[in-house]
């Protein structure tokens, strides 16, 4: 078995070899390297053709029209474009936006920026399951609400929000609905002919495509308007300028096509591995599953090991690449804001590990992971005074710590 074992597929995935192979056809001199905006020669036309095909492949996975796909440099840009684009276009209609405390930073930081620009943002609290109570969402809606932005699958705890139901509500109220689907595309079926979603963000590198590539779905019927955030050249029907990175786009298209073809069987395999991992850890003392098990993406397992500090555990697990939460916030040592929003206390939030399983994970790797995690958790607990006190039956929450 090759070490370290990669169990951080929610942070990013390796490019599928089939995807890499396609991408390589659009780079060097003996290949189709042209600028798709070049209308005067075959190099440009070939590149444009490749972009068209990829647009169809992406649209197919989510049952959309290819004309509804806008290429971006990644889901962060898609989220920024969707939220700022709507806010700046529809600000005369209203300045209120609703989102949730457990959204990705790309949504939260964008909303913070809009607050600085004079918008009013409501940050909903999720239930302990990690899901939004649709009644509370409805209660938060106002006459001047122009946008609801909620993620489909949470990046840390993997819970799947009922987007279809929320879409019915937002549409009936005439509010635009944006969904960050970076973690759900290719893992959860998405049908945009059925779901009443107006804008949806996608990332390539979360489903075995390249980094630096994403897309924004922009509904045509009813038509959603956006104010462009990047200017110059008027690519992507004026919504997003900049030379199209053909090899990246081709990679995203191929990745989405593979996902469409293999999602059902792959999900089944990954679910079995995930359940095996949980069964291997579940019987340990003071271990908690974060996020409801009833509505969870197959590859995610977020576990709190009480009385163990998450970052120490990650360091101890040097043969296993996992994270204590989102990669985008892992430079900070604060406990996960997602777990805290779920009502987990700081200690449990601090002791959490996100295992995310993917296409290239093997059963051997899971077996090995179970034994290492058990060993290291026990070792760290043996060194912990708090664990010792807990074992002695002392209720730590009742202790009054002396100040120094």
């Amino acid at each position, binding site marked *: 078995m090759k070490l370290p074992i990669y169990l951080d597929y929610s942070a990013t995935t390796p490019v599928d070899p089939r995807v890499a192979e396609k991408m390589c056809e659009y780079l060097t001199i003996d290949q189709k390297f042209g600028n798709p905006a070049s209308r*005067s020669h075959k190099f440009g036309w070939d590149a444009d053709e490749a972009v068209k095909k990829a647009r169809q492949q992406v649209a197919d996975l989510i049952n959309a029209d290819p004309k509804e796909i806008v290429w971006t440099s990644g889901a962060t840009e898609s989220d920024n474009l969707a939220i700022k684009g709507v806010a700046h276009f529809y600000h005369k209609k209203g300045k209120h936006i609703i989102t949730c405390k457990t959204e990705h930073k790309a949504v939260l*930081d964008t909303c913070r*920026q809009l607050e600085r620009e004079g918008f009013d943002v409501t940050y909903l609290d999720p239930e302990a399951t990690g899901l939004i109570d649709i009644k509370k969402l409805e209660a938060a809606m106002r006459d001047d609400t122009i946008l609801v932005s909620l993620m489909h699958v949470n990046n840390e705890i993997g819970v799947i929000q009922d987007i279809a139901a929320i879409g019915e509500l937002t549409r009936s109220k005439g509010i635009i609905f944006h969904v960050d689907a970076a973690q759900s595309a290719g893992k959860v079926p998405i049908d945009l002919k059925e779901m009443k979603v107006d804008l949806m963000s996608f990332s390539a590198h979360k489903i075995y495509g390249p980094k*630096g590539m994403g897309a924004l779905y922009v509904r045509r019927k009813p038509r959603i308007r956006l104010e462009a955030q990047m200017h110059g050249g008027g690519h992507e029907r004026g919504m997003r300028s900049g030379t199209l990175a053909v090899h990246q786009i081709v990679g995203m298209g191929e990745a989405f096509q593979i996902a469409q073809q293999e999602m059902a069987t792959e999900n089944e395999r990954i679910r079995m591995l995930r359940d095996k991992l949980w069964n291997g850890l579940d019987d340990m003392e003071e271990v908690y599953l974060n996020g409801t098990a009833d509505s969870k993406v197959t590859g995610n397992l977020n576990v709190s090991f009480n009385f163990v500090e998450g970052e120490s555990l990650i360091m101890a697990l040097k043969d296993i690449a996992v994270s204590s939460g989102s990669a985008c916030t892992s430079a900070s040592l604060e406990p996960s804001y997602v777990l805290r929003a779920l009502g987990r206390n700081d200690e449990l939030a601090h002791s959490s590990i996100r295992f995310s399983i993917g296409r290239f994970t093997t059963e051997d790797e899971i077996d090995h992971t179970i034994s290492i995690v058990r060993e290291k958790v026990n070792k760290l607990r043996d060194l912990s005074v708090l664990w010792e006190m807990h074992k002695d039956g002392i209720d730590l929450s009742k202790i009054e710590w002396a100040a120094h």
Partner: protein
Amino acid sequence: MYFDHNASTPMHSEVLAEMMPYLQHCYANPSSVHSQGRMAREAINYARQQVADLVNAHPSQVIFTSGGTEANNLAIKGCIQGMGLSRLVIGATEHPSVKDVAASFESFMQVDTLPVDSQGTLEGIGNGEIESLLSGQPALVSLMMANNETGAIQNIADIAPQIKAQGHFVHTDAVQAAGKTVVDFASLDVDLLTLSAHKIYGPKGVGALIFDKKIDLGAMLHGGGQEKKYRSGTENVAAIVGFGKAAELARQNLIENVSRLKRLREYFEQKLGMLPGVIIFSEKTARLPNTTFFGMDTSTNTNGRGIDGETLLMHLDTQGIAVTSGSACASTRLQPSHVLMAMGVGEQTARSAIRVSFGLQNTKAEIDQLIDAIKAQIEMIPYLEIVEN
């Protein structure tokens, strides 16, 4: 045969070789704290040094973006927002990614345009005139270092101090200049400078903004705080690594590449000059070594009818020759080049314009074929006219 290297370049095979491991083997998210994530982070830092070296900047001055367009947008919007400016000045021949940003500002701030002379630079515009055009409240002044259509090189090192002396900030779009001429951020005295990878034999979808940290730069993309909060979003590791390698190759081979491109272009222009009525734009000023933008003088040719550039390049395309009538980014539009209009070129001549931009893989034999094809088309013009009449 590809003669459109100012639109995009094929990627160098060594660049591809550097990138591949970062797609399939070292693929972790550089923000992840585990060892694989840290390896990806190190790769980015290495590339940052390589890109900094290309333009003699410090690695901490490099912000990676999704390309030249984003870097230009970030430079202008970020500087204006961060420095609290309410005025933008651009050159008359800027790339659409600067021009369109300026257009989007027009409704709520003062936007001025600096004219160019007949050669496409500020050289022929008097110092006094520039000074009076720039007088007034502090602005960000955005001037491209080398024009994508004509290849005309603006003497930024000369102009920047003059502009800054009036209390303004200076951004230069060096997307076309990098790899084809010396770009030295430290001695240019500009505040912000834009680079793109796919114009220097690197991958598409990655670029950089080089900035002086005296500039309080506002961010355009929010969420995650990557690139020291100046540009959020998971880093495109493989492309950044490719950009780094391309920058290193461009720096190492600059003199050799420039002289090779110059030889090709001289050979081409010598032959082109023998054709009747050909005008080479920006011929009398310093130009990028690889670029020839030319048109037909309608008065000496075909009874004033001239030739339509679009028609010419379609004919060339049928013979497997790729050239363009101007910027790829504007090639869906049918207006004559805004660059030529700003230089005072007549509309008819501007409509006949063809841009040939050479690359490292072009050969003299290819140029011979290109010349033959252009010649055949020009000779056809009188007959085309008879048919039309």
